[in-house]
């Protein structure tokens, strides 16, 4: 057993940490969220140059050939800011789905430009506001000549305006299919959602024609295959939330010493201490189960239950950590300029992303104790 990162991993962590401090400083990030500038092209380009986009992609396809734990280390640091935008979708989700579902030709056409930053992806899978199911897909695909005609919408797509392409599901006469749609095609409209959320859009399709070469998969099992493919990405997303929790923890602990009321630092008040205690417990639970899940993926162990468990815990932890931090920061923590605000908003937005905690707990239980087939 060894519960420490390797020397190389510590170096990687420190490099990303410096990048985040310099490129996504806490003085700037709240403004990005207010101005809806959560896609920072220059930051994205630098991340691509450094080799973090597609870092888990095999080197033969232009990626970095890194392990899942390494990706977790990078995303943990990105979560501290929190660095917003399509980094997770482009760097992890889309390449993973493409390598599992797409043809060799599509992979060699689409993945290398993804890794060098010239194709940015958005991903739209389930269209349900609350669940993560195949049944709720709203985009409809009809055969039309050599290609397809798309009508309907993809819902709650993260960072759609930043993306060149949308990797998405659609309903066809034969069942669910996966597509890689050029978002600049005529008839595509990106509609922002307003609310207590960050960078969420519906992508509407009005009789949009796409070619057959943009169909990634027509396999009858493609939804299931995608779910399986997504499993290894879940602990990387969890690591992002762990990093976010860690930063919120640090700013909260610091504030308990700085902020003086009734003649003493608020950290001396036991009620305030209680909030930080619970915050810490959520953070550590998410942290250690996420690390273990990352390790299980990399070491070839059975990991399906563990990644769902980590995702459930990390989403819940980020949400609760922000709650407890708001109890401590009180008024100032709700000012739009405060660095806690991007975290609070992100914790809500990501709570649903790729399935909420209840969904992942159910998936965990289904793996551990399969229901009898009816």
């Amino acid at each position, binding site marked *: 057993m060894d*519960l420490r990162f390797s020397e190389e991993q510590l170096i990687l962590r420190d490099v990303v940490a410096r990048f985040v401090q310099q490129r996504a400083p806490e003085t700037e990030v709240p403004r990005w969220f207010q101005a809806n500038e959560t896609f920072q092209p220059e930051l994205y380009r630098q991340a691509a140059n450094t080799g973090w986009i597609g870092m888990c992609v095999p080197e033969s396809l232009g990626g970095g050939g890194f392990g899942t734990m390494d990706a977790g280390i990078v995303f943990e640091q990105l979560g501290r800011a929190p660095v917003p935008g399509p980094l997770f979708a482009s760097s992890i989700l889309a390449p993973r789905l493409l390598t599992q579902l797409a043809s060799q030709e599509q992979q060699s056409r689409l993945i290398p430009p993804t890794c060098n930053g010239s194709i940015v992806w958005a991903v739209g899978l389930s269209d349900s506001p609350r669940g993560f199911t195949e049944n709720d897909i709203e985009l409809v695909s009809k055969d039309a000549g050599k290609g397809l005609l798309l009508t309907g919408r993809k819902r709650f797509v993260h960072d759609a305006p930043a993306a060149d392409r949308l990797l998405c599901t659609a309903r066809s006469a034969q069942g669910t299919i996966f597509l890689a749609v050029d978002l600049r095609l005529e008839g595509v409209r990106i509609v922002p959602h307003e609310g207590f959320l960050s960078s969420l859009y519906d992508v509407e399709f009005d009789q949009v024609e796409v070619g057959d070469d943009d169909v990634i998969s027509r396999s009858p099992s493609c939804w299931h295959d995608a779910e399986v493919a997504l499993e290894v990405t879940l602990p990387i997303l969890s690591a992002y939330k762990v990093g976010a929790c860690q930063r919120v923890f640090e700013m909260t602990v610091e504030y308990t010493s700085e902020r003086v009321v009734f003649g003493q630092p608020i*950290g001396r008040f036991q009620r305030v201490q209680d909030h930080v205690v619970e915050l810490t417990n959520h953070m550590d639970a998410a942290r*250690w189960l996420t690390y273990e899940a990352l390790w299980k993926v990399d*070491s070839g162990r059975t990991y399906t239950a563990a990644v769902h*468990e980590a995702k459930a815990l990390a989403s819940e932890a980020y949400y609760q950590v922000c709650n407890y931090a708001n109890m401590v920061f009180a008024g100032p923590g709700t000012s739009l300029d405060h660095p806690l605000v991007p975290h609070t908003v992100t914790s809500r937005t990501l709570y649903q992303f790729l399935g909420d905690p209840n969904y992942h*707990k159910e998936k965990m239980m289904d793996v551990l104790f399969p229901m009898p087939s009816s």
Partner: protein
Amino acid sequence: MNFDQEADTPEQALFRQEVREWLDTAMAGRGDLKWSTQWSTRGNEAEYAFRRDLARKLGEKGWMFPTIPVEYGGGGLDVDHQFVLEGEIARHDLSLTQVFYTLARIVVPVVNQWGNEEQKRRILPPLCKGEVICWQVMTEPQGGSDLATLTTVAKRVGDEYIINGQKVMVGSTHYPDYLWTIVNTNPGGERHENVSWIYVDAHTPGVTIQPLPMIMGMKNIVFFDDVHVPVEDLVGGENNGWRVSTTHLELEHDGGGSVSGDPAVDRLIEYCKDNGDSMGRLIDQPDVRRILADAIIDGHVLKMLQTRNLWFRLQRDPVPYGGVQARYLRRMIGLSNSQRFQQILGYSGLLKDLNVDEATDFDYISRRGPATLHGGGTLDTDRLQFARRLGLGRRQRESAPLTI
């Protein structure tokens, strides 16, 4: 990182093989004996005798306290060996710190750190070798979480201390050989600067032990009436007891860590597979699955944090707030589980079953929730300590003392 507890060095692998075979042989005599918990309500004398014997055998090998030097009765081994031993005994649903119901797990590291050479050579070997049973005797009727209000007084007279006072809610079913107790050695002195630890032969005249039945089982009241104790048995220096307590309390507050986990949820899962009602097997019912998922996740988190605590402690780099965090969560999860078990099992969740280890007995699980919220300090003192270790509102963060 590597979460595989059996990812051994070649030397560890050889040692693991040796320990595993040795334990399989030693456990062969267990037969149908079911393990009792620390304050057992079962009164299982045959089981107690078996575990005392097991402790003696382990002690002879130096495996009860592997990292304690041989001259003090330990194994003279390193932390790699200890980690193997912890893991191997956990396979038999016991832990190295609780082979039988003695508090040597706390007393040995404390005496090893604070005792003088003569004390270490005299006091430690019988404890390390599992030959004696020792209780920790701290709480007083007026004290509770406020340990420092000690009114049990040890008065120095010549070469002896004469102890008078009363301790409550201590020990377990089986009569001790020694009492490890904290006493007031300077009644007029400044708070925290007036206490000392002393190792008392429990058979000394004037010691009276009176059973005190409680929800979780049997504890005791200990009376000291003019108990004469040689001055050589005061450990860590007169009036220096509060500093000695830092080591003691770190271990009492779960700073030791563990790889053992809680077997109760595993039994609940098996029960839910094997039992059902008109709606089908319990394990297939959605409400049961939701509750069970939370119990499984909580159990996993707790075991992970306890393992983290053990591993970093053995690296001599203890997580500052790790012990008190695990302790707080262990008790909160124990409380949650007492309700979860009942939510799933109904009346059956309250029933005693002597055919299983007590730690997995539904009766015990339902008692454990409310009954283990106080030992060694309340949930509220847990959180106070936690806050100190996080450095909340303080210039300096309190660190965790080394306990190895």
